[in-house]
């Protein structure tokens, strides 16, 4: 019986090893302009984001 379905997600702990390139969007500026959240931003580091 399958009780738990785990969705594929980026492992945040692993992202500590290769993250932090700083190329991603820096604020809400190119979008909503009034409420910053980072969940909807894209990672720009295509070589490391695996």
């Amino acid at each position, binding site marked *: 019986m399958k009780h738990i379905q785990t969705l594929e*997600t980026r492992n945040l702990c692993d992202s500590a090893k290769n993250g932090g390139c700083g190329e991603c969007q820096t604020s809400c*500026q190119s979008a909503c302009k009034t409420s910053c959240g980072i969940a909807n931003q894209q990672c720009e580091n295509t070589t490391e984001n695996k």
Partner: protein
Amino acid sequence: MIHQYKLGGLNIVLDICSGSVHVVDEVAYDIIAEFEQKSREELLAEIKIRYVGKDGITEEDVEECYDQVVSLKKSNKLFTPDTFAPMAGELKQKTGGVIKALCLHVAHTCNLNCSYCFASQGKYHGERAVMSFEVGKRALDFLIENSGTRRNLEVDFFGGEPLMNFDVVKELVAYARRVEKEKGKIFRFTLTTNGLQINDDVIEFANREMSNVVLSLDGRKEIHDRYRVDYAGNGSWERIVPKFQKLVEARGGKNYYMRGTFTHANPDFLKDIQTMLDLGFTELSMEPVVCAAGDPSELTADDLPIVLEQYEKLAELMIQRRREGRPFTFYHYMIDLSGGPCIYKRISGCGSGTEYMAVTPWGDLYPCHQFVGEEKFCLGNIWDGVTNTATQKDFASCNVYARPDCADCWAKLYCSGGCAANAYHATGSVRGVYEYGCKLFRKRMECAIMVAASERLNDPS
């Protein structure tokens, strides 16, 4: 840290520090809820009493489920400890002095007179002004000079109404395109406009040069025209909607947002989203109003449950329309579970005042567009650089672990501590939190993750 909730018919468990998302049955949901408080024997006994015999669930099922939870914990997908605090200041420290985004206030003036405008009808509590080409060019040079090894530079043409200074916008883009290759940079421009001055020339230019356009429309005509009026008091809806439709159609799939504001007048903003959809727009953003406490447009405590319900209904509408082959995007529900931001980004907070600054028509620098006009936040100017280092330090030290109120919040790695301007206006400190905004944010995240989970489960491709 675990956050679990039930929404859209799904039982969702988030393991905050690993970023894992689990969709679970009732047995697993209850085991996870009490896993850390009770012994195996104690918890199994309780869960068995609760579930064995129901829907064919056996004692073995319950034990197997418990073991799955143990296994997920061992593989760091449940109950992952929070070890990120020491890294919180690292990204901003590492990138200290690097600027990669500017908001160019090319026009501190506007052809609309919206009473709810956080920029006080485009004037930012100051004089009307437009940016000269010389100031704008210097701002772009300042950005290039201070961008270090960053390749992608973001520049937003903002106001007031930037199309009231369109010639300068065009000249600045032409200048940036002339120098970007030689400097090893890529400029990504955004234009935020109320639409009144959109014409064929603007459409051709925006669709050629702007990575994104943000188009201000509040939804229903009567809602839009309540605030978004010209100086004669006439609503703008009928004039701008055909222009927006023409621009979006010509945009050929390039990014845009139809950006609305909802206020105390329309906490039932889903009707406004529906209007946008009916008008043919599919890339949507609807923002809670930012205004002074006591302003008639301010969202109230009574509005809160209505707004939270609207977010849930919006999530349901997105799922329904996707199934019908008529999908649309809502900015705050965009979430890429497998490719979102790295942990450094998630803990270091908004780049305002460090990587990102706003430039006034006179060349003054502010931490972001929402601080323009608050003189004590002026950081310096585009000729001398940042001279108000004390204020910049304040922004540099803003991160999710610098905000005590965020410590126990499950959403902290999704919001990164939130908006410094919202925090300042609500609490007087850029390290405070705007609790009303937090409540909305948490609901939006629950909905966003539910929509993403629903998509994955029903359409794994």
